[in-house]
């Protein structure tokens, strides 16, 4: 009987066609876990070196105090808080792609969601370090938690900073859970292909997964509910972060648009990082047939959408500053492009509001070299956005004799560098240890061979 192999389900776009069999998918993804190349080892060594530089800086800060980090009046929230918000934002695109697009049944996410989800977990792991570094006496960070202490003192739950503790720890836990649950069937597929000690490791990590009908029944439901829970969570996390600022009365912080403005910015910055990571990754792991131009085109369209929301938000901030009639608000916004930190203000506006508009052109969206350069600008622009919002808004305090720009020192740069090293180190280790493309979901996209013509549905 002649087999009818891989009929395309009705209505599916030809761009989503994967001209491979299930066996090809397993083989190609398992191949990414083979012996690492010299280039990979060099990248990993660089990441570890950057992390060590950050760690040494941190140890000096623990020994001597935050004075090294240039904490001087009036700017006490500077590079560390900026970088904290930056990394939290990076995570958001991962959850958007893995959870929100899953609920929307958007099939193009399949090839890219695992790497973005891993990016989320490692970005939140990086971000979570910063409040601890910033508090000064890092060894008593647990005072932030509501635990029964000697005097039965409880934290102040009315403080947005405590909301952050709950939001970030929940975000990390749920994102990591979502990643691990998604990995289990793929780890089982790897287990069944490798030998020796690697088989023992993957057998342990696969927690007895065999892909039985009952396992899939519970798994599919659990995954759906995790996605449904992660969706409002991701929208809430950056809203809570934005309220760290919006609930104060500092001019340029006290805005009602902050929550949606920060969420759009977070997704925009995360998409920038996704593109920065995926373009070299798919080449290094030879996954061009799975992560195609079509995926980058869609990522770029999302970037354009969120970039345009940012453009609108920037415009509204200026409009409301003028319309409010508040001299302090107007002065603060005048200083952004024309004050002493004009270079930061213009970097933010150009990289975010204007560079993203280049993505209206399809030629640019599918030109990976151009897209890579744009993604670097987005990363840069979004770090500067947070730096401008946080640090520059504090430079002109209510006491004019204290007015001063942020005092950025070697300790700020050291920790910033270390955070990139920490993030890159985990991401690189993950990419070589676990399937960076979701084997099981790709297989769901490829119809199994049939004996008879005519597919299901």
């Amino acid at each position, binding site marked *: 009987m002649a087999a009818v192999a891989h009929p395309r389900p009705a209505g599916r776009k030809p761009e989503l066609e994967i001209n491979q069999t299930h066996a090809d998918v397993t083989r190609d993804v398992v191949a990414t876990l083979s012996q690492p190349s010299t280039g990979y080892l060099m990248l990993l060594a660089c990441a570890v070196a950057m992390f060590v530089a950050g760690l040494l800086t941190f140890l000096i800060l623990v020994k001597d105090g935050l004075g090294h980090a240039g904490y001087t009046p009036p700017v006490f929230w500077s590079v560390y808080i900026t970088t904290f918000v930056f990394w939290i934002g990076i995570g958001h695109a991962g959850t958007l792609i893995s959870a929100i697009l899953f609920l929307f049944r958007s099939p193009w996410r399949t090839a890219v969601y695992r790497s973005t989800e891993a990016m989320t977990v490692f970005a939140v792991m990086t971000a979570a370090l910063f409040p601890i570094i910033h508090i000064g006496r890092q060894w008593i960070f647990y005072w932030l938690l509501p635990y029964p202490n000697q005097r039965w003192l409880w934290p102040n739950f009315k403080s947005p900073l405590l909301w952050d503790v709950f939001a970030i720890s929940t975000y990390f836990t*749920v994102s990591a859970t979502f990643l691990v649950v998604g990995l289990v069937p793929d780890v089982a597929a790897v287990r069944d292909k490798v030998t020796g000690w690697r088989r023992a490791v993957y057998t342990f990590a696969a927690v007895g997964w065999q892909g039985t009908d*009952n396992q899939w029944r519970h798994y599919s439901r659990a995954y759906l509910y995790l996605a449904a829970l992660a969706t409002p969570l991701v929208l809430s996390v950056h809203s809570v972060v934005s309220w760290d600022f919006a609930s104060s009365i500092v001019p340029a912080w006290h805005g009602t648009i902050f929550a949606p403005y920060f969420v759009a910015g977070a997704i925009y910055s995360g998409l920038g990082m996704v593109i920065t990571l995926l373009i070299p990754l798919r080449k290094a792991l030879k996954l061009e047939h799975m992560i195609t131009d079509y995926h980058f085109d869609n990522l770029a369209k999302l970037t354009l959408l969120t970039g345009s929301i940012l453009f609108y938000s920037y415009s509204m901030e200026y409009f409301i500053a003028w319309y409010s009639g508040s001299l302090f608000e107007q002065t603060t916004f005048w200083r952004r492009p024309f004050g002493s930190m004009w270079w930061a203000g213009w970097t933010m506006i150009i990289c975010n509001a204007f560079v993203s508009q280049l993505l209206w052109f399809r030629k640019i969206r599918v030109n990976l070299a151009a897209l890579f350069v744009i993604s670097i600008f987005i990363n840069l622009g979004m770090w500067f956005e947070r730096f401008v919002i946080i640090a520059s808004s504090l430079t002109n305090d209510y006491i004019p004799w204290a007015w001063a720009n942020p005092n950025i020192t070697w300790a700020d740069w050291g920790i910033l560098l270390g955070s990139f090293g920490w993030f890159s180190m985990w991401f690189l280790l993950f990419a070589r240890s676990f399937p960076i493309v979701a084997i099981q979901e790709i297989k769901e996209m490829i119809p199994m061979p049939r004996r008879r013509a005519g597919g299901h549905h």
Partner: protein
Amino acid sequence: MAGRKRRGPAPGVLASFIHVDAAVDAIRALRARGHRKFVVYSAAPSHEIEEVLDQSISPVRLFTLIGGLTGCAAGFGMTIWMSLDWPTLVGGKTIASIPPYVVIAFELTILLGALSTVAALMLFSAIQGRRGIAYDPRYSDDQIGIFVPGGADQQGAVEQLLRSAGAVEVRREAA
């Protein structure tokens, strides 16, 4: 543990399929003959297989709901009780001020909802897990497997059924 007997593999028939419609035919035929306790392996979930197995919806959702509601109650309960336990006036708000506590309650709703979902997934996988039954590594790759438990007296008929449905390989598993 001394004296405890280790269970051997369950006896039965294990069939491998490369065509999804052949596997569906086999499941349909097995169910028509009154078989209910067989296991179907696949590398990815398949709507066709789910439909023909006529499975009920997973009870995981109940755990998600209970976890979420517990988290919400715990969030409000913890913040209100702790505020009243050490009353401090902050920002002119009432001692137990609900709006700021919504954030904590929301986060704990999500946290406990997610953790209880995973706990339920692990619990049901453990309870309904079929340890000691035959498995083939090809089922996580590109084939569908069906294991039908049964003694030697039933294995002949089951093997015949699975072969006629289109199995590419059938093997008998002794106890």
